[in-house]
């Protein structure tokens, strides 16, 4: 007899339907698994065999053939264990009366018959729902994640035995209760009010987040660059449900989803400087997995001590910074992951870290400093609109009782500035000022003669490059938006000039 059970395979961030067909014939006892399975899928034979036995059912001593269709799609991971087990039981007529049609089964089996969670449940269920499936059986540990999908019936089972009891109607499972998304559930541990002093850097962070500009923090070690960077997500507008879902999908596929089920906080990723290009951009030999830049989607990618990163890894960031997504091509096919992140980088002012320090002497030669700064290529620096110096904090600042502004207050201003930009760019596909091209600059960043004079002077005196002009204009536009001013006023241009790249190497 032949049985057909539905499951889904992960392909990038999308799910592809996979049908587990099981045929049991008389003949020498054997167990064949076909349909381009990878090692983890092949090994499911042993897991399925033990799980069935330890659930108190009989593993048929006959010739068993399992086909995972479509046959030309490479199957990876342990998603199909449950579907195969149900298929074998169904084909060996041990599930008489149970109707498995239209149900999607997902889950990995342990030898004892328990269901283990799998990565990527959310994108799989979303894909299945899009293809008209509405009933799912998934591992209990994935229930939270699945509860955010509306209009479907999801059963979360702890074990194979529970699934069988449910299917045969002995002990029906209750469907997973739907959770609703509340943006306010975001709980950040960092807050801007914990950052003492640094008025200029804090302001730069506010401007950067408002206009979607990338940010470079320059300062000696131990001055709170990381602390400030950690506050960036806390002043970004709350994620909408769609944004949160997108982030959750990526985190689900990468298997880094916490117990919350949905990612409500904007991600803050800090890959170590030894990170490889693949870990940064995505890839891998066992299925294409999202990299750090995709995990930072809708959030912040923080590169601490940027010059220490591999040059090739940094250069690979250029295209995603421009396009907001990355296409990873492997022999198995090409996968596109979203990668719309804010880049925040930090670096020392010089190799010894004491350049510009009031009380410590910098021992670096100009050549050494230049070499250090040159480790970041011009084209990459071009994509960083704002550069600000974070200086050593004095003990008095650290201990002062002065009230610092909280993240919530800053966030309110950021949201107002974002609203202005939404209105401005309605229908253009742009989101924030940082996305503006030459045409939009001309349209939205007209300067008064006085403002133009300042910009001209800054080019002459501060030796700015032509490339710096567009950056300054964009940042000035954001500063004007924060001030709720329609026109870019001279003081806005001046502030934008102060966030330029240093010493004419812009």
């Amino acid at each position: 007899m032949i049985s057909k059970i539905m499951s889904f395979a992960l392909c990038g961030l999308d799910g592809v339907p996979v049908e587990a067909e099981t045929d049991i014939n008389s003949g020498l006892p054997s167990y064949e698994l076909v349909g381009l399975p990878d090692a983890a899928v092949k090994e499911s034979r042993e897991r399925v065999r033990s799980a069935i036995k330890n659930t108190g059912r009989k593993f048929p001593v006959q010739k068993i053939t399992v086909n995972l269709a479509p046959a030309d799609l490479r199957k990876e991971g342990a998603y199909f264990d449950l579907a195969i087990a149900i298929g074998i039981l169904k084909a060996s007529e041990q599930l008489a009366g149970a109707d498995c049609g239209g149900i999607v089964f997902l889950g990995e089996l342990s030898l004892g018959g328990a269901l283990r969670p799998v990565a990527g449940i959310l994108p799989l269920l979303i894909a299945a729902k899009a293809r008209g499936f509405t009933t799912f059986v998934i591992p209990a540990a994935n229930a939270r994640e699945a509860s955010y999908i509306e209009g479907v019936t999801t059963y979360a089972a702890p074990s194979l035995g529970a699934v069988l009891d449910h299917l045969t109607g002995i002990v029906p499972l209750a469907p997973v209760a739907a959770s609703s998304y509340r943006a306010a559930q975001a709980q950040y541990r960092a807050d801007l009010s914990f950052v003492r002093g640094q008025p200029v850097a804090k302001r730069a962070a506010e401007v950067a987040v408002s206009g979607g500009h990338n940010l470079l923090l320059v300062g000696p070690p131990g001055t709170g660059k990381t602390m400030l960077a950690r506050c960036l997500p806390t002043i970004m507008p709350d994620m909408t449900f769609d944004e949160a879902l997108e982030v959750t999908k990526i985190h689900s596929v990468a298997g880094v989803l916490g117990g919350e089920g949905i990612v409500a906080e904007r991600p803050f990723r800090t890959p170590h400087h030894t990170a490889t290009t693949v870990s940064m951009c995505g890839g891998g030999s066992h299925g294409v997995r999202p990299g750090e830049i995709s995990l930072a989607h809708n959030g912040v990618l923080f590169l601490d001590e940027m010059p220490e990163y591999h040059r090739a890894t940094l250069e690979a960031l250029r295209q995603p910074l421009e396009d907001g997504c990355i296409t990873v091509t492997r022999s198995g096919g090409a996968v596109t992951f979203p990668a719309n992140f804010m880049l925040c980088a930090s670096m020392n002012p010089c190799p010894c870290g004491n350049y510009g320090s009031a009380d410590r002497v910098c021992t670096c030669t100009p050549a050494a400093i230049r070499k250090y700064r040159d480790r970041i290529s011009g084209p990459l620096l071009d994509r960083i609109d704002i550069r600000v110096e974070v200086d050593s904090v004095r003990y008095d600042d650290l201990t002062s009782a002065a009230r610092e502004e909280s993240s919530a207050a800053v966030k309110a201003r950021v949201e107002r500035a974002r609203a202005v930009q939404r209105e401005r760019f309605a229908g253009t596909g742009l989101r924030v000022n940082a996305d503006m091209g030459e045409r939009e600059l001309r349209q939205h960043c007209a300067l008064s003669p006085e403002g133009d004079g300042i910009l001209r002077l800054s080019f002459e005196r501060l030796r700015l490059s032509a490339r710096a002009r567009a950056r300054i204009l964009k940042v000035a536009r954001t500063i004007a938006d924060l001030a709720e001013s329609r026109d870019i006023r001279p003081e806005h241009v001046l502030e934008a000039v102060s966030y330029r790249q240093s010493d004419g190497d812009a």
Partner: protein
Amino acid sequence: MPYTKEERSAIWLDSFGIDYARKAKLLASHTPYALASQFLSLRGEICAAVGEERCAAMEASLRSAQYYGALERSYAEKGIACVTYFSEGYPEALRDIPDPPLVLYCRGDVSLLGRRKFSIVGSRHTSPHILRLTERYARELSKAFVIVSGIADGGDAAALSGALERGGAIAVLAYGFDFVYPECNAALLRKVEERGLAVTEYLPHEEPRGFRFPARNRILAALGEGVLVVSGGMKSGTRSTAEHAYQYGRDVFAFPYAPGVSSGAGCNALLKQYAKLVDDLVDIAAVFGINLTETEEISLTDAERAVFAAVREGEAHITEICAKSGLDALQVNPVLTMLEMKNLIVACGGNRYAALK
């Protein structure tokens, strides 16, 4: 202009890379032309001074019809003009030192050698504040002088680039024209060759070596009517330049530094001995009887005036400037940028600022 026979002989003699002391010994009793024209009769003397091997090479070069022509052509191809001790354009300032270079290999505007010159030197370790100050001094002094400096990173480079903004600049190199050192100043050196003058006493193929720099410093010191030392530690090469300048009877000037600033300890040591303290352009202008008053009128707003006054009290962090000027950081930041653009203050890194006047 074709070279005279005396010049040609000097270029010929210099082309063998004979070290200075041996050259000086030969030239003490004979002119280069005499050495070339009476080579055979003087052979014994020359051989004793430079050794058999080199002597043979010199003899062979005199026998060869092509040697000198090829030499002159190769210099011309490299854009090198030679100014010899026997040339009209040889700077008088170099004639009164005990060890004048025989030939100056030049790229650029040779006429600059005949103008009034002033040397500015600084070490590689120079704070951003002093760098900007150096640029400004070089810019102002270049109204009256051609500024002479090395091409090292830091103080030297700042002096040259400041001078090039308005007037002439001479870079004195410690190596031949086949080399560029330091690499990072290649663009600056090119600019000097185009709009100013680069000179060296070394043959094109002679590479930068440690011992050539102190020797170069004597030319640097001698060329200028005075030397301004903008920075330098106790062991800095700027001290050797100053020492030469003092011995040649040139005026030595130095910026004063606060105690404990290692990049300026050498300057302070010079000030204790013979250098004149400079904290205003007038200090230099007065010595040479020149007038360097600035014509540029700079108008300031009230906020700018308040902030500038705060910065003038001494290098300060932005929070101190806020406290002194009574403005908050968000108001002060654009004002500081404006003052920076008006060349009144300089950012020293770490959100610290210093006044330039």
